[in-house]
């Protein structure tokens, strides 16, 4: 790994750009994401910044079950993101389809359309849970990208590590 690559990886972990996409959610998770970015919890102190375009983003925050209509759009937006890219499913609906399971127009969780790196459950997850999830993701990323952090990394689930490794290598 060259010096430049190391630098880029370090920057990526220190300041990931996130991008929010609503794939059929009820708004509950969306307002909690914004609440997490607002003065009280202030996700930006971890370097996380919300951007408006998928082209600038490292991490996509997805909320809501995937509807039939939004699926091709979601996939297209995922393709537009630059590598390496990570998807975080926020809320029970984004994790599994939640209360909308059994609908003719809902496919299920976000993982039915695109690969997902991390899941944050809750209906909706509290801003503190979203902050914790984002922090956890950063921790895992720094471990995967070979950057020694002062935070003690907790053991991560096997599957999650695998998918992150693949996403980083891809």
């Amino acid at each position: 790994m060259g010096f430049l690559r190391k630098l880029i990886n370090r920057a990526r972990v220190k300041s990931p750009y996130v991008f929010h996409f609503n794939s059929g959610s009820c708004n509950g998770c969306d307002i909690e994401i914004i609440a997490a970015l607002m003065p009280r919890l202030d996700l930006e102190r971890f370097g996380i910044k919300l951007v408006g375009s998928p082209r600038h983003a490292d991490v996509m925050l997805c909320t809501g079950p995937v509807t039939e209509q939004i699926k091709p759009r979601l996939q297209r937006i995922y393709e537009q993101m630059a590598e390496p890219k990570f998807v975080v499913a926020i809320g029970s609906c984004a994790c599994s389809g939640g209360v909308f399971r059994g609908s003719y127009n809902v496919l299920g969780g976000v993982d039915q359309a695109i690969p997902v790196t991390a899941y944050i459950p809750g209906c909706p997850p509290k801003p503190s849970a979203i902050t914790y999830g984002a922090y956890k993701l950063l921790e895992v990323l720094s471990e995967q990208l070979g950057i020694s952090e002062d935070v003690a990394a907790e053991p991560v689930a096997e599957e999650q590590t695998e998918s992150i490794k693949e996403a980083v290598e891809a």
Partner: protein
Amino acid sequence: MTETESVTEHHMAPEEEHEEEYALFRQVMADLEGDVLIEGSYVHKQPRRLFFQVLPDKLRDVVQYFMTTHDMWQASTLSGRDLGDDLQANYHFFLNDQKIAITLRVNVPRNKPEYSSITDLMPAFEFVENELRELFGVIPVGHPKPRRCELPENWPKNEYPMRKDWADPRGLMQRSKTTGPKKPEEY
């Protein structure tokens, strides 16, 4: 739905405490004799609710009557219903002067579910009528802009998911119940 059931669904209000509603109801029934059926039109027990059963080809006349005589401008919504042999369209309005919510409804036969659209009289119904056509297969004839509304683009033409006899031929309602998390190599 059988005849007896549809009768028990209608809970008539007692005359006392509903004087305003009954006054309006009697006036409308007298003015629109022949357009509005007596069976199915009633004052509901809930305060300030009137229901009128209208003949399908007279709907436009009745709406125009309400707009001119009772200054009806607040169009609320349109709900479809599947009654078995018939399909029903319920138009909900609110009379702001009298503060009474009225529902005009038309029954259309299942084998020929057509009646004339009122979107040109009240533009607010443009998309709810589209939605009715899409989900129930009831066609408002003369609709200025029939187009796809809620369902995905690849939805087949002759399937109306909100009808009671829609059998879910492609297993869509089971699909999302059975799926689990996907592995990365499945994408």
